[in-house]
């Protein structure tokens, strides 16, 4: 036991002291924060190039129109990065020919008959550089509004009256189980949390599992392995390595989580008080769908404040003790399961290239877990999610995505936990058998048949 302690300490200390570890500890949160903030930032940020767009309007017979007869004159307002030039009495053909003159970045061609178009129509936009999403939205919204207002006038409906006809309907989700307590749910934030948890576990298993493998390979290629196992049992060495690296991982992730929230919090407070809403919307695709169909979303302050209040109210509904507890358990369980298999791969290989053939079958369940997790996050109680959160090879990722969402039935959690424990005990036992023979084998490419033999060796 004391020897395992020594091994754990060495594995942990040598890794935590590495420059790359320290660098990653500080860089990781910056990347994470960027991932969280960037989508919000992108929607509020337009590209800085200023484009000049020529607007050519013709009547329904294709004839050019003077200023005075144009329906769409000055309908699309200029913005910081786009300027619209309304041409007087110009034919599209003639404007198109001026390509080499370089006067315009694009041409918007409008045929007057779109003013009375039915439910859907289209206009041509000639570009040098494809228009940004922002520009496309700006042009179509402006045209839509003008056509809409014009139809109101034609039909003699007062414009301000129509606004009171319009009603936006949102679905308020109420957790039936808690209906007596008012039962307001926090689906969006829980989805987001589940997604983050599942993804972190996936990342952790892959990153640190690979480190176990590389650590074993290092001992093999440097030929120190035999020196060490003449002092300790191969199983002790393997276990010490897995635990030591696991602790390194926990340390890093803990640091990441703390730093990520610190950085994200500070950044949002200082630079972009509005982006929390964008983040929560990004996390919940259901909401993105209905955002901005009628009015362009703006980050006006009253809306933003209530959005922030929403987030905090929702956060209070998350059972953090359970989430963190489950996170640590599934973190460790999944890591030991895969870490032991990675150790076996390292022992059976002579160099990194050799590991490829064995990496493949181990990566597959992990990737399946990630894919199912993405599905889970849309439908957390679906059959797929339930089964994959019980099957041990995918359960750490999938169950972790389900738990923040609302506690799954106790039976399912117990089954998942129990199976995971049994499986990691089994894989560790199996890996130990491959490990203790593999570490002493040099210069031979190992086949699966060979490994099967190793597993059956008595000692």
């Amino acid at each position, binding site marked *: 036991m004391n020897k395992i302690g020594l091994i754990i300490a060495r594995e942990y200390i040598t890794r935590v002291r590495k420059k790359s570890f320290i660098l990653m500890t500080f860089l990781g949160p910056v990347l994470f924060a960027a991932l969280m903030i960037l989508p919000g930032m992108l929607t509020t940020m337009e590209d800085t190039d200023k484009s000049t767009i020529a607007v050519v309007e013709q009547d329904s017979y294709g004839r050019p129109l003077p200023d005075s007869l144009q329906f769409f004159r000055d309908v699309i307002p200029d913005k910081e990065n786009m300027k619209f030039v309304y041409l007087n009495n110009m034919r599209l053909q003639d404007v198109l020919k001026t390509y080499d003159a370089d006067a315009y970045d694009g041409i918007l061609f409008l045929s007057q008959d779109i003013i009375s178009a039915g439910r859907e129509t289209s206009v041509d936009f000639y570009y040098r550089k494809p228009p940004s999403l922002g520009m496309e939205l700006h042009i179509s919204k402006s045209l839509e509004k003008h056509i809409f207002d014009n139809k109101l006038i034609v039909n003699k409906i007062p414009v301000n009256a129509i606004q009171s006809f319009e009603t936006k309907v949102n679905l308020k989700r109420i957790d039936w189980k808690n209906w007596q307590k008012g039962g307001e749910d926090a689906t969006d934030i829980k989805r987001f949390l589940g997604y983050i948890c599942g993804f972190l576990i996936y990342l952790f298993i892959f990153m640190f599992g690979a480190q176990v493998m590389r650590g074993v390979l290092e001992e093999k290629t440097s030929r120190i*392995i035999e020196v060490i196992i003449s002092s300790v049992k191969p199983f002790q060495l393997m276990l010490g390595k897995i635990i030591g690296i696991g602790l390194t991982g926990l340390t890093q992730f803990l640091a990441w989580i703390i730093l990520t929230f610190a950085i994200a919090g500070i950044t949002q407070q200082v630079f972009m008080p509005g982006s929390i809403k964008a983040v929560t919307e990004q996390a919940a695709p259901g909401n993105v769908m209905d955002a901005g169909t009628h009015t362009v979303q703006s980050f006006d302050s009253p809306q933003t404040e209530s959005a922030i209040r929403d987030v905090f109210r929702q956060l209070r509904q998350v059972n953090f003790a359970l989430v963190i507890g489950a996170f640590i358990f599934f973190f460790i369980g999944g890591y030991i399961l895969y870490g032991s298999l990675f150790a076996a791969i390292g022992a059976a290989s002579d160099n990194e290239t050799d590991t490829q053939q064995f990496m493949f079958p181990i990566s597959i369940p992990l990737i399946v877990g990630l894919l199912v997790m993405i599905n889970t996050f849309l439908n957390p109680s679906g059959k797929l999610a339930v089964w994959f959160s019980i099957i041990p090879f995918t359960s750490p990722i999938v169950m972790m995505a389900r738990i923040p969402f609302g506690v799954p039935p106790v039976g399912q959690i117990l089954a998942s936990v129990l199976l995971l424990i049994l499986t990691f005990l089994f894989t560790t036992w199996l890996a130990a058998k491959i490990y203790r023979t593999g570490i002493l084998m040099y210069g031979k490419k190992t086949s699966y048949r060979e490994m099967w033999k190793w597993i059956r060796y008595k000692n």
Partner: protein
Amino acid sequence: MPETEFFSVRNVVKRYSSNIALDHVTMGIPEGSIYGLLGPNGAGKTTLLRIINQITAPDEGELFFKGKKFTSADISRIGYLPEERGLYRKMKVGEQTVYLARLKGMSRNEALAKLKYWFEKFEMQAWWNKKVEELSKGMQQKVQFIVTILHQPELLIFDEPFSGFDPINTNLLKNEILNLKRQGSTILFSTHDMGSVEELCDHITLINKSKTILEGNVQEIRMRHKSNLFEIGFTGDPAAVLQTLNGDFEQVDLVAEQGMHVIKVRADHRFSGNDILKRILPVAGIASFNEVIPSMNEVFIRVVESQHN
């Protein structure tokens, strides 16, 4: 055997699925001796050493340490320098040696004190804070040697200790091995270098194709493998000498050097050295006469090859 058996291997069998690596091997290492484990490549030497180091377990057979059954608690009484040896390349020499010593059960302070002694002895203090990858191969070997003997094990096991060492370090190592013997350690080592066997070993075991084919005291073995070969230095007419020996003795070699002729003659079982002398005395002046005792190298080749035939 008059000496007490310090470490014994009894009827050890080790099978791998398709072949047998050790077939009822028995070996007794006397206390305070240097014991050589010899054999061609693939004979099973490393497997036996791994079994003694408890890296692998035998399928059959038993091991005894000072008459008591060998257990996992005894592992810290052994120091092992494997043939495939290395160090963590990125780790500093000092930290690494302390770590390896502690894995052998030493306390931190004990390890530091002993390391200080050895690092001073080998003039290696300047390496303490260097990473292993910054050291030359010879330097690394010295570090490995120190790690092996640091915890003052009762039994030291060296697998091919001289491979990869330059002559200076080989000598240093040989002297240290003899020193350790003088201080009471028992040493088991495997090697292909028969010169060092004659120089260092008291006893040997020769393993070939998983079986023990030769065992015993080095001098005894050499004497046992005498082949009635004699070397005679004489002055006079070589033709006359050949004439008188002809028919009954086999002439192996005849050279002339420094005004003298040296002939090697093999006698068959009917004759002794005295018979040769009797024949030559009348025809030539005898300058030297001795029986040729085979080197371990010759014994090794002869025994192994006779097995193949």
